[in-house]
């Protein structure tokens, strides 16, 4: 498996997963869940640590919600164990689990007003009335809903409902907060605001958050670590930067952001330089990539290169430059901050090259149909075996 060298520098100091002595708050051990013949969760093992903001990311139907519901107690595993704080949760009904869930549909009680919705969980414990009132008011203050405490859910906007659902789920101070697509129903602008608020809230309360999302940007923005799921199984668990810069597979590379994939074969490994030479039909001179953990020669691999890590020029680069591709600009996408060039290398083969628009030139020098040279540094590509 390819592994980049310089990722450690990106990490913040919070990294309990890197500490072998750390005890996870929640643990999935070989958990499988079937619905009839369909396998929704397939042998998932996963550790989530105290105070972590953990994201389950994957396309719709890959089993994210099911995995979360296994932790909340709404589903029972067909195989494997789910543990919380070291305790096996088998046989513990949902109402006795110290986790709270924010449902994708919010599931606010339509017959109760905002105050009573938030107080619902507190009233299940024998909490004194005055304390309940104080806690609910504190929660509503926190999500800026105090002025609407007497409203019914059907008198609220989508964003307001989302806040009430969040306040209700946090009110009991759960050991872990489960959020199922919490922002799916919000519009883009509100969603981005909420992402940062959620992150801030999590840091302030010191709670452990498990969020389910199919939006890669959202996962990258909020999470300390991301588990990328595919067909019920975990494809990779890592920090957002690791997932993006050192994906474990073509699936992960493709799911998070744009990527150009080149089919290749390992030609020669240079252990001293931690470098690998790849032969590919797409580049007669072959590719060079940095890799300290390269597979054996003749192994079939893919070289994954992000569009923004490539350079594009109208002139051929000096001889001896590694990883040069020749092509013709087929289309240009201008989004203000970035310009994306679609470059035809051969018939039916187009790659994407992205360039930050650092200058304010309105007339871009590179136009449609231009012959161009695309190149990238040896440390820009990731060698993938699957």
């Amino acid at each position, binding site marked *: 498996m390819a592994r980049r060298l310089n990722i450690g520098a990106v990490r913040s100091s919070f990294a309990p997963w890197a500490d072998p002595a750390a005890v996870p708050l929640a643990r999935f051990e070989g958990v499988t869940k079937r619905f009839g013949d369909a396998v929704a969760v397939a042998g998932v093992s996963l550790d989530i640590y105290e105070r972590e903001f953990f994201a389950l990311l994957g396309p719709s139907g890959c089993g994210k919600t099911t995995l979360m519901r296994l932790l909340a107690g709404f589903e029972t595993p067909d195989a494997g164990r789910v543990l919380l704080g070291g305790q096996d949760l088998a046989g513990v009904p949902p*109402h006795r689990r110290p986790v709270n869930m924010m449902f994708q549909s919010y599931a606010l*009680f339509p*017959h109760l007003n905002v105050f009573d919705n938030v107080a619902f969980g507190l009233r299940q414990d024998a909490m004194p009335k005055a304390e309940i009132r104080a806690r609910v008011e504190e929660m509503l203050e926190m999500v800026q809903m105090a002025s609407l405490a007497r409203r019914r859910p059907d008198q609220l906007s989508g964003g307001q409902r989302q806040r009430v659902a969040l306040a209700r789920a946090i009110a009991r101070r759960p050991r872990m907060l489960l959020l199922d697509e919490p922002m799916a129903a919000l519009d883009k602008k509100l969603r981005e605001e909420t992402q940062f608020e959620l992150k801030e809230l999590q840091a302030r309360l010191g709670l452990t958050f498990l969020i389910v999302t199919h939006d890669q940007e959202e996962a990258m923005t909020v999470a300390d670590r991301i588990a990328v799921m595919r067909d019920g199984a975990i494809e990779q668990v890592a920090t957002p930067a690791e997932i993006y810069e050192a994906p474990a597979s073509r699936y992960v590379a493709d799911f998070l952001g744009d990527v150009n994939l080149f089919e290749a074969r390992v030609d020669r490994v240079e252990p001293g330089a931690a470098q690998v030479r790849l032969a590919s039909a797409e580049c007669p001179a072959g590719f060079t990539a940095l890799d300290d953990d390269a597979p054996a020669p003749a192994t079939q691999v893919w070289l994954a290169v992000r569009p923004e890590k490539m350079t594009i020029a109208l002139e051929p680069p000096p001889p001896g430059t590694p990883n040069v591709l020749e092509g013709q600009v087929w289309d240009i996408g201008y989004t203000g901050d970035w310009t994306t060039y679609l470059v035809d290398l051969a018939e039916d083969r187009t790659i994407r090259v992205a360039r930050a628009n650092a200058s304010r030139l309105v007339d871009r020098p590179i136009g449609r149909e231009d012959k161009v040279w695309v190149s990238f540094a040896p440390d820009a590509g990731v060698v993938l075996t699957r």
Partner: protein
Amino acid sequence: MGHRSWLAAIPPYAWLLVFFLFPFVLVAKLSVSHTVLAIPPYAPTLDLSRGAAGVRDFIGGLSGDTYRRLGQDHLYLAAYLSSLKVAAISTALLLLVGYPMAYGMARASPRSRTLLLMAVILPFWTSFLIRVYAWIAILKPEGLLNLVLSWLHFGPVEILNTPTAVYIGVVYSYLPFMVLPLYAALEKLDPTLLEAAADLGATPWRAFWRVTFPLSRPGVAAGSLLCFIPIVGEFVIPDLLGGPQSLMIGRTIWTEFFANRDWPSASAVAIVLLATLTLPILAYQHQQARALEGRR
């Protein structure tokens, strides 16, 4: 309102006029007449051939005497109270029996749901009278129930011609009117709300009382009123199953009409019954209107 929508309003009003208002006015008029030994067995009758004098005589002949007699004879009051009591107890029993049934149906898989719904509606396809007669065959001293009990070495029970038989018959006959509105309310209930309640620490029992039951209240109200109102005036079931001593207002009306040939008294009893039920009927209409608004 446009010309066309005005035209469209005619059929329902014509319907109400012919089938409700007109009979009602007839009964109301009968209730302020007095009995005579003739055909028809009441007076005055309106004789329009005599013109204004006929109308004057007719109006002069009307009196509230029947109502006064109704107030003096406490047997009528006893019949009203007994009917209201039977209706109230029956409605409570119907709720107790119907709620679990509706709940089970709403929780069942879609396929068995259709089957159960059919099972509730199917008895309607046979005659109501035949079904009540069937209960006589079950409950009579040498009937099916006592046969089964004797196999199990239990003594015979006497149920036919007792209030118990009336309750059994009423609960059996009105069950669909209770179950269907309850089912409609419970079926709409979003199951994630119950998951949310459990997630927030509510035991299944508390989740039921805090979430399911409050949200099914429109169904409870609709079903209860839909049963209570007609049970108050029920005649056939108490007559067939309750025996001669059963005292209900429906039977009183029947007796006045057919046994005593006292049409004015029967009509007055019916009018008072209607007045008694105005409140629950209005409550039902209010509740239906609200349910309709809620759906929009």
